[in-house]
């Protein structure tokens, strides 16, 4: 490859490059910023993210495969890149004061976050299992560290260790899965896999097992039952801002990989894999929602809710094998992910506002009477809860509507029914938050911060407004199709 096309290739992934270089530079720059002015680091991070975001936006509509088929830049990738960068910005908004409050405000936080975002972006563009693996690690390792960022606080460290050990464990499965895929097809490039399958040279048995193991690894990342068990503890133990980032970034990244890999490489295996996906989705929805009922701590409750949400998104992947449905399915999944991202950032914003000192004010009791003292905050939280439940007019509702539609289109009415019934169950615990805020009396204390409040407000408005004027969003999402081989 000449310098020429190297340059072109690099330009094709400029947002990623920009982000990485910026982060790397920031490490050095940060050394020379005196401690009093650390705010500038944050500012620079924001600038970097915004620059990358602009780069990503002006890349829209360009589809190309670069780096010898390692990377594919398509609408899917563009869409997700925007989400990732956006969530980065939101996370900063949530973190800035929060870190100060916990006295863990250190520049590495932002740098690591940027790298993690880089991993996610890579994840969205990958066209080769090697890259999938590396992106997964690049995404996770900063998260391991961030989870333990509140050290020497025990819970934080414990969360980090658990996350790390289990993550590594799951990573092992991914690696072995890739190995099997390689063994079955002689290549790790998704395109190659497809060719091998079409040419019939592939060993389908090994391929299926490999795919299943990859599913396990990625399923772990997005917290699909039974690979979900790290979620509550890690969400609970990590600093809330990190949790927020994790709950959106890691999940969206994981699903990006799942969609990319399965829809583009493994549709031929649908016969074998669909039942597994079906079962996993059902299990996840049921268990996530049911166990959530027993939660009293808001962070754990949201953790389980995010598990349940993973189940719903997984539903969209179930009919991935049907060529006529899968584009819709992908779109539905992306739309739901978007809704999920907006909603859960909002919810976490509220949680952060309520978190007095570290790990205080996180019980549901602490939310009693919120509506009286801080009506707007309570209203926002209500919107998020309703959106999670799937009640109009919220993004959550439109997302579910779209999701169920594709599932039924794929002919999985049974799954749809389960989804529907479980979201009925979910109403029960989401409502409990609302009940507490509006119908109980209490003396809630909040730490009001402009940025966090802004986040909550904006996300709340978006959750409602975007649901009413969903058309452009749909248009955008449905363009964000996968480039298939």
């Amino acid at each position, binding site marked *: 490859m000449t310098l020429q096309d190297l340059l072109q290739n690099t330009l094709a992934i400029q947002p990623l490059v920009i982000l990485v270089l910026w982060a790397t530079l920031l490490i050095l720059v940060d050394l020379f910023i005196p401690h009093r002015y650390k705010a500038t680091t944050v500012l620079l991070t924001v600038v970097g993210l915004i620059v990358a975001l602009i780069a990503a936006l002006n890349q829209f509509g360009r589809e190309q495969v670069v780096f010898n088929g390692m990377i594919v830049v398509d609408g899917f990738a563009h869409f997700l890149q925007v989400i990732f960068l956006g969530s980065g910005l939101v996370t900063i908004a949530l973190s800035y004061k929060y870190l100060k409050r916990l006295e863990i405000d250190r520049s590495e936080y932002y740098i690591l976050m940027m790298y993690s975002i880089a991993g996610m972006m890579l994840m969205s563009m990958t066209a080769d299992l090697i890259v999938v693996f590396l992106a997964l690690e690049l995404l996770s390792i900063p998260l391991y560290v961030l989870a333990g960022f509140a*050290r020497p606080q025990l819970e934080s460290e*414990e969360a980090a260790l658990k996350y790390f*050990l289990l993550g*590594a*464990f799951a*990573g092992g499965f991914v*690696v*072995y899965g890739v190995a099997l895929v390689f063994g079955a097809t002689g290549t*790790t490039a998704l395109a190659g896999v497809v060719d091998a399958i079409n040419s019939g040279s592939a060993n389908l048995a090994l391929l299926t097992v490999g795919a299943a193991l990859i599913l396990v690894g990625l399923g772990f990342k997005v917290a699909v039952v039974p690979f979900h068990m790290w979620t509550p503890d890690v969400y609970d133990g990590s600093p809330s801002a990190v949790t927020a980032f994790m709950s959106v970034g890691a999940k969206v990244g994981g699903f990006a990989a799942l969609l990319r890999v399965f829809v583009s490489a493994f549709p031929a295996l649908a016969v074998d894999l669909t039942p597994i996906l079906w079962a996993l989705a059902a299990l996840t929805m049921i268990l996530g929602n049911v166990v959530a009922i027993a939660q009293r701590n808001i962070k754990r409750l949201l953790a389980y809710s995010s598990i349940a949400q993973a189940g719903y998104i997984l539903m969209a992947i179930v009919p991935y094998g049907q060529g006529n449905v899968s584009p819709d399915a992908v779109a539905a999944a992306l739309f739901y992910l978007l809704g999920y991202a907006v909603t859960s950032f909002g919810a976490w914003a509220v949680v952060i506002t309520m978190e007095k000192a570290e790990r205080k004010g996180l019980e549901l009791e602490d939310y009693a009477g919120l509506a009286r003292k801080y009506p707007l905050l309570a209203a926002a939280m209500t919107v998020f809860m309703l959106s999670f439940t799937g009640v109009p007019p919220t993004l959550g509702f439109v997302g579910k509507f779209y999701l169920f539609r594709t599932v039924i289109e794929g002919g999985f009415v049974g799954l749809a029914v389960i989804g529907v019934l479980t979201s009925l169950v979910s109403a029960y615990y989401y409502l409990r938050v609302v009940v507490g805020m509006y119908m109980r009396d209490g003396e809630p204390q909040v730490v009001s911060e402009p940025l966090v409040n802004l986040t909550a407000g904006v996300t709340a408005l978006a959750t409602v407004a975007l649901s009413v004027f969903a058309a452009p969003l749909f248009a955008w999402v449905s363009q964000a199709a996968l480039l298939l081989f």
Partner: protein
Amino acid sequence: MSVPLAYYIGLSAILFTIGAMGVLIRRNSIVIFMSVELMLNAANLAFVAFARSYEAISGQIFVFFVMTVAAVEVAVGLALIVAIFHTKQSIDVDQMNSLRG
């Protein structure tokens, strides 16, 4: 060279399983971590074997990456373990359940 590929794969499978076992039955977090390394190693073996029979170098490349990642994980992981040892004076995972439910 006439050792069937299947043997190598079988061996890697055995090693992988043992590694997984390690994660499940050991309580010392370091050992657990080592077991993970073993799992990766087993995967590598499979890779190399496949690469050999496909005469495709990319398999070995993957192994190379896996090793790097392993190193990365070790760096972070050991740091974590040390850190938690400082707070908790223990690396027994069975004593780390302050988060549950």
